[in-house]
């Protein structure tokens, strides 16, 4: 199974910035998986997403070194703020979701079919006729994801997609990612929200100062959820439990 995205010793610097955002990163992203990317602010998580998705340097400018192999052009990206991602050309959710497929000039029936499937998968079918500007942050972000999935991307990249949402909206959004991967797409999500990442990621890449320092299953990579910090301080040996259930199992009664 050749990887969908392969980075070999990739470095990246933004235009006008001396400090490289990525240094010597090598990683392969497989289709059908949810890959988490985490790291402190400025560690390069967002940059890794832009490079892996083929957006940098094409749209951001800057200099890429090393080898990047991207086996698809069908890449979608989701950002933290829902409102900036609306096209502003549709007065209904259905029209907003249809914008992508319609832009590719696909026949009308194909566009409508793609829209029906996407809003169904994202659980926003009941909002189809609603004006996007009247939706809550959580609903809007799911509409944004639906409008990208309607184009059936092979790679879906999400940059801290739930930062602006309340806990219920965030949980609902993260819960969708495994089902998107199950349909064959590769999902790459960057966030400092390690609590939710631990629940949905098959694999996590940890970055520090532009370098990939650890990668593997969440349990082996993440160690800074509240439960993990409590367990470590209370003398629990590695690998640290990441959530309450895991911690309860590790306590000797």
């Amino acid at each position, binding site marked *: 199974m050749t990887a969908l995205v392969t980075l070999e010793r990739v470095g990246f610097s933004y235009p006008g910035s001396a400090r490289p955002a990525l240094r010597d990163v090598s990683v392969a992203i497989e289709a059908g998986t949810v890959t988490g990317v985490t790291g*402190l602010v400025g560690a390069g998580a967002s940059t890794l997403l832009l490079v892996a998705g083929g957006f940098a340097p094409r749209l951001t400018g800057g200099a890429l070194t090393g080898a990047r192999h991207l086996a698809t052009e069908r890449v979608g990206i989701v950002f933290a703020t829902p409102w900036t991602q609306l096209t502003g050309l549709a007065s209904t959710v259905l029209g907003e979701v249809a914008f992508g497929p319609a832009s590719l000039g696909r026949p009308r029936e194909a566009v409508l079919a793609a829209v029906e499937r996407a809003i169904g998968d994202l659980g926003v079918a009941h909002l189809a006729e609603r004006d996007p500007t009247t939706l809550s942050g959580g609903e809007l972000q799911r509409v944004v994801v639906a409008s990208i999935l309607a184009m059936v991307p092979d790679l879906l990249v999400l940059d801290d997609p739930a930062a602006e949402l309340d806990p219920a909206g965030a949980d609902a959004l993260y819960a969708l990612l495994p089902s998107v991967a199950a349909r064959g797409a590769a999902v790459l999500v960057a966030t400092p929200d390690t609590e939710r990442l631990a629940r949905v990621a098959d694999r996590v890449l940890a970055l520090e100062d532009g370098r990939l320092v650890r990668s593997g299953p969440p349990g082996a990579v993440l160690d800074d959820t509240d439960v993990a910090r409590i367990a470590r301080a*209370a003398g629990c040996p590695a690998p640290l439990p990441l959530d309450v259930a895991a911690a309860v199992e590790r306590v000797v009664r």
Partner: protein
Amino acid sequence: MSGHAIRFEGVRFAYGGTEVLHGVTLDLPAGSAVAILGPNGAGKTTLTRLLIALLRPRAGRVTVGDWDVATKRPDEMARRVGYVFQHADQQLFERTVQRDVAFGPRCLGRPAAGVDRALEELGLVAVADVHPYDLPPPSRKLVALAGVLAMEPGVLVLDEPTAGLDRVGRDLVVAALRRRNAAGVTSVVVSHDVAFVAETAERVVVLREGVVAADAPVRKLLSDAAALAPLGLEPPPAAALGLALGLPGAPIRVEECVAALGGVRWRGA
């Protein structure tokens, strides 16, 4: 830095025709650390905007210390109340972090000492000469918070201060808020981040449909899953772990949970 008491007396407020606050009465003594929880649209942000005269109540009175807020303008209230907006990074405009953080103190004619302290507290000393917009968005949020802390206000109002921050950023904000409360500053935080509320607040006020639905010590409310559920919230991880293991003392903070776990033995993976 001395704090001011905050008092809401039968406050009513309406946007256009629809009333959003239906008679809120609250008494927050100086130095208290309060969090306001409640579903979206319950009037949380409206309540805080009344504190700094951005909104005028339709009925009732809001006082900060001995000031009746109705008689003051927002730039006058800024002498006592430091208000940090949810998207506060949108107010930055100076060419360096240092100059932007100094904007508030300069407007109020306050000494620059507060600026250096704020930069120190939020780990911004190293980027003091960097342009705020050359920093990633979460760091800009810290710069905006520093710009209000630098004014050394007696009251701090924070609207979703931790949204988008990483672990280090959150810990800095927790430490800064705890330090200010310890110095007697009154704080009011509006946040969905229950873990942050647990780490910083002593008292929680729940606002639902424009009325105070609950006003309880943070420990009691945040370890009560049934009370939090209707607000779309769950107990913070530390409280959940305490409940799951039946730890004594209903811990809700990380260090409380660690203390309650003293002497427990862990199985290897």
